[in-house]
């Protein structure tokens, strides 16, 4: 399998007042296409920062980051936005849906910024929503949906651009256990279909779905285990 993510000595330093805080301190990591990996660690361990850097929401302070074979360096904000829009799908703990927009409009949103025509957007979004089992909820706003349904809308939105990578940050954190299980089953299915998935979590049960697990502490990878037999 080709390597999707390759990091060499990546660090991220935040300056808070007089003190520099290293959220990431020399991460070297390689993720192949099709992998299903959990990023674990206590809060403050740097796992969210790592996800932001991998997902092009943030730039590394130092080190080399290659994504899909291309070295990504000195990118402008708009370059980052373009990569996020086309290559990455995000799923957040708090869903991050537009509250006044319908499920369909929320799923369409990434395509709006890729100048896809409205008819094409709607067709595509409808298709994806049907795949995640929300064909009958397309014209509901997030407020009219359960937490599990909202997270499925968010997953549909992440998938609508056919990304290379799905980044899920505590995807079950705000859900009851049944909805959480449904969401994890959906993510498992996406992995089975060949999508590369990174899940950031502190929940061992969630991490158990992944085939590989890295643990961060103080901005460094302290553990990297592969579970082959699941």
């Amino acid at each position, binding site marked *: 399998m080709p390597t999707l993510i390759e990091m060499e000595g990546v660090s991220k330093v935040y300056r808070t007042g007089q003190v520099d805080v290293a959220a990431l301190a020399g991460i070297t990591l390689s993720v192949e296409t099709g992998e299903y990996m959990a990023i674990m660690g206590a809060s403050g361990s740097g796992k969210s920062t790592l996800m932001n850097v991998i997902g092009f929401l943030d730039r590394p302070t130092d080190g080399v980051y290659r994504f899909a074979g291309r070295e990504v360096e000195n990118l402008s904000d708009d370059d980052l936005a*373009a990569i996020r829009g086309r290559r990455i799908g995000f799923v957040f703990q708090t869903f991050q849906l537009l509250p006044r927009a319908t499920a369909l409009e929320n799923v369409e949103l990434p395509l709006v910024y890729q100048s896809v025509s409205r008819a094409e957007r709607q067709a595509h979004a409808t298709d994806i929503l049907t795949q995640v089992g929300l064909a009958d909820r397309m014209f509901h706003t997030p407020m009219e949906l359960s937490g599990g349904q909202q997270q499925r809308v968010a997953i549909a939105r992440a998938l609508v651009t056919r990304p290379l990578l799905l980044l899920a940050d505590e995807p079950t954190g705000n859900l009851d256990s049944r909805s959480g299980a449904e969401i994890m089953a959906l993510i498992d299915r996406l992995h089975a279909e060949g999508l590369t998935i990174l899940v950031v979590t502190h929940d061992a049960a969630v991490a158990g779905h992944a085939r590989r697990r890295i643990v961060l502490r103080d901005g460094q990878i302290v553990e990297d285990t592969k579970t082959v037999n699941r």
Partner: protein
Amino acid sequence: MNALESSRIAVVALRANPGRSALTMLGVIIGVAAVILLVSIGEGARAYIEKELTGIGTNLLAIQPGKTSTAGGFHPPQAGSVHKLTFEDAKAIKRRAYAVSDAVPVVLGSGKVKVGNLSRDTMIIGTTPEFPRVRNLFVEIGDFVTQADVDTRSKVVVLGRTVYRELFGDRPALGARVTIADAKFRVVGIMQAKGMTLGFDIDDIVFIPATAAMELYDTDALHEILAAAGRAEETDLAIRQIKDVLIKRHAGKEDFTIITQRAMMSTMDTILTILTGVLGGIAGISLVVGGIGIMNIMLVSVKERTREIGIRKAVGARRIDILQQFLFEAVILSLIGGIIGIIVGGGIAYSIPLFYSAIPTRVSLWSVTLAFFFSVAVGVFFGVEPARRAARLDPIEALRYE
């Protein structure tokens, strides 16, 4: 992302807060309506005065003794200046300047006009039969001063409406004797009512033959000669010919001033343009205040929608996309406000004359166009900063914003 998409997003956002959008728009509506209204009043005043000046008589030239600026304006007629204009000058102009259709001598004075024990101080104009034609005046009863009256220095008088009413009430006046400056005059005509022009009562005048007036005031100098060009486009030619004639008669000196109706109009026009500009400017300030209202609301809106901005950025919105979205919101607010303001301001401007005919208004296309583009410009100007703030937001922090 194209403009249509941005405006759609903006409209959705504005409709989510209808009350707030309407109130924000109100500032622009008031501003634009005020601009349209005040400019229309200024323009109306100009149209009114132009009409009034035209009513005095078109193609009109006033030749006055003494050399003063020819840049227009009102020059008081100067009597007793060294270089006199004479009755013969007027005749010579009439005879030799062929572009001039009429040259009317005017002897101006004032005095008491008495009938029995009633008297009235009024303006006395000594002139020739062509005067009513040149000044667009008409005789209602009887006749104006005739050429024979002028030739024979007849003591005849034509009364203006106001003078007639004051001295005679409704009684017939033709043939009656009136006393003007101790001389007896016979009433031969009464003028048609003309009304006020620029605050001056044209009906508060009596007319007598120019020759009789010169005798009455013991002078051979005219206060002015009123001349009319045969056609409006020959006015310049008429001026040149009058100059030629008079300079020859005045020993080669240009010791007179020709004031054209056009010069008077352009002076008034300048004054009223300034007035209109000042009124529009004052109204423009309220439009700027409306713009500040937009900016204020947009800043609040950007703050409130920080998370939305974060979400949009996370799924691939570039800076320009976010900038465009919020800028369009501001511009749509000011645009709709501008259109409503034009309707409101125009509507009020049109209806004012229906209720108060004393206030003339005229809604001009340029003021509507100006107000419209100014309101859009206000939207852009005051919308840019909030939109830039939105576009600059860091997506991670924006997503975390509660």
